[in-house]
């Protein structure tokens, strides 16, 4: 598949810990088609946010990327200089971080923050044209022009998140990574912000990686979904298949643990706790919590294998009906 805009192959990230090296991302591979919306979902601590940072090469010590490659339009990112990588962030791959409230500078007006982003990436425009560009960006994300002159504290959560999207798209990136962009917002505002993100992304033709734990949000927004558990991808499938016929027992547990408006019944949690990354169980990392676990699962970690159309799953018993 040469048409991929982003190609992640065998990406590994580790953190140094007094008790040894902790693998937070363990050999993750996926490809993103232009304009595609891809979701990365899992419980907290499964490595999904680390993935997002690793793609942008923003892992800081004690963490480090210790293997694998990330290619944007065929260009290997690890071969880029620090400066080239800095230019590529935002211009090539933009991040809408978790908790917009914390990512905006509280003592700088919104317009000035967009201006900074542009200036930092070599966009030099005369004042009038610059103001027009900022007003244009704000209106694209559904904000009034006056917002440019406002400080973050004058905006609601939803408006701040829109401002973050405006910054993320100011250089028309090829890929937008949105890390739980709406986790602090209530559902009505969440829907509005996600619909804005969807429209903007379509107009730009950018691909999106949506990182999060809300399977409902994933089902509504992404085209294809990857489920992470203990630093690995355990299932990747088109989102429709994933919600109607999940193959990995963890995916099934994740979906049924979500309270839904469509079926009322016993609330089911996922038994047990997510494992500690520095002390993973042998074999399949999910086996202590898995209803299908057998002897083989305790010995042998399942590899990702093809399962149906455009889908892969890492489970010895993926064919076993639930």
């Amino acid at each position, binding site marked *: 598949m040469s048409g991929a805009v982003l190609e992640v192959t065998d990406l590994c990230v580790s953190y140094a810990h007094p008790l040894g090296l902790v693998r937070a991302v363990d050999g993750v591979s996926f490809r993103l088609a232009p304009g595609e919306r891809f979701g990365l979902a899992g*419980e*907290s601590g499964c490595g999904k946010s680390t993935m997002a940072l690793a793609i942008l090469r923003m892992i800081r010590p004690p963490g480090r990327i210790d293997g694998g490659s990330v290619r944007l339009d065929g260009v290997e990112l690890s071969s880029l200089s620090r400066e080239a990588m800095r230019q590529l962030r935002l211009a090539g791959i933009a991040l809408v971080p978790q908790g917009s409230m914390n990512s905006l500078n509280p003592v700088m007006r919104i317009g000035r923050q967009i201006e900074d982003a542009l200036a930092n990436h070599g966009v030099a425009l005369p004042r009038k044209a610059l103001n027009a560009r900022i007003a244009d960006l704000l209106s694209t994300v*559904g904000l009034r022009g006056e917002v440019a002159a406002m400080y973050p504290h004058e905006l*609601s*959560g*939803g408006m701040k998140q829109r401002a973050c999207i405006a910054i993320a798209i100011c250089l028309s990136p090829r890929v937008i990574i949105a890390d739980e962009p709406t986790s602090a917002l*209530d*559902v*009505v*505002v*969440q*829907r*509005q912000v*996600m*619909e*804005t993100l*969807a*429209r903007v992304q379509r107009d730009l033709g950018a691909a999106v990686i949506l990182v999060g*734990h*809300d*399977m*409902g*949000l994933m*089902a*509504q*927004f992404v085209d294809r979904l990857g489920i992470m558990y203990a630093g690995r991808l355990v299932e990747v499938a088109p*989102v*429709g298949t994933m*919600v*109607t016929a999940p193959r990995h027992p963890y995916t099934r*547990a*994740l*979906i049924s*643990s*979500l*309270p*839904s*408006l*469509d079926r*009322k019944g*016993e*609330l*089911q*949690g*996922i038994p047990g*706790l*997510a494992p500690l990354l520095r002390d993973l169980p042998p074999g399949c990392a999910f086996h202590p919590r898995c209803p299908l676990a057998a002897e083989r699962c305790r010995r042998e970690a399942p590899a990702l294998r093809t399962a149906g159309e455009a889908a892969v799953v890492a489970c010895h018993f993926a064919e076993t009906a639930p």
Partner: protein
Amino acid sequence: MTELLRAEHATKTFGPLTALSDLSLTIDERRPAITAVVGESGSGKTTLARVLLGLEMPSSGRVLYRGKDLRTLGTEARMTFRREVQAIFQDPYEVYNPFYRVDHVLLTPVRKFRLAMSAAQRRALIEAALRAVGLQPEEILGRFPHQLSGGQRQRIMVARALLLRPKLIVADEPVSMVDASLRATILTSLRTLHEELGISIVYITHDLATAYQISHNILVMYRARVAEAGATDGIVTRPEHPYTRLLIASIPRVSSERNWGAAAEAAAAGPGGAGCAFMGRCPEGGAACAATPPPLFRTAVDRAVACYRYREAPELAGADLGEVLIGRPGAPPPDPAKGREAL
């Protein structure tokens, strides 16, 4: 006296801001129920919880505990109130003193309310409460808060409330800081308490889906007022207030059919005027809406809606939401006569 707690036209303002406006609600001891209060941030849910718990006194109106105003409760009655009405808060990290073992939060109420006569009895009480919420006492007691997960800590809070055999638990966003997979466990333990011990629960949440799963009744709040109240299934399947409809349509569903429209970026919140607070976003606002906020209209035995679209229906008697709330199966139903007097 079957009336445990009653809010009468309770309004709470903070300076120019009205956080809670004209709320009347009776919680009847004979009709234990789980009542969810849902709404966006800033809609007044937490203020409602704090007013019911007596942590905030209403700026106007009053809250009565067994017929007596919370403001003038005597020492003894206040102690009973503190025992019968328990709180569970949002953050299971903040309520613990990190220097004490978790036993401390369980021992304190036992001592304070003299629930046990001996150390052995104390231990037995605490162990029973922990087991009731699905925890193994030997895994919990003697540990420090940082050695336990958020889900375990929150369940200890439920156990602490349970120790006191309360009649009412007000739980303010008890699961919003807990991982999705653990939410179910905590909510299930709350529901078990209600079912087995007949404890009423006011469950404050922004998550309509969990409210649907565990509650009998839902109060939908919008900007300090109750927009709609009634039996859970009816509200979720046949919402009447335009805000409730918007809320339900906005919930992302785990389904291969997408319920989110591609282009329907819903109207943003406008400034509130003198009339209905939802008017700026409402697709069907009229002249009446701009003048005064709509009262609660009783559209069914188990439903009240604050919207002029339902002005044909009688106004809710005394505006008391307790009139439309149902209890668990077997408890007396709401009294339709009270709501239909005007007909």
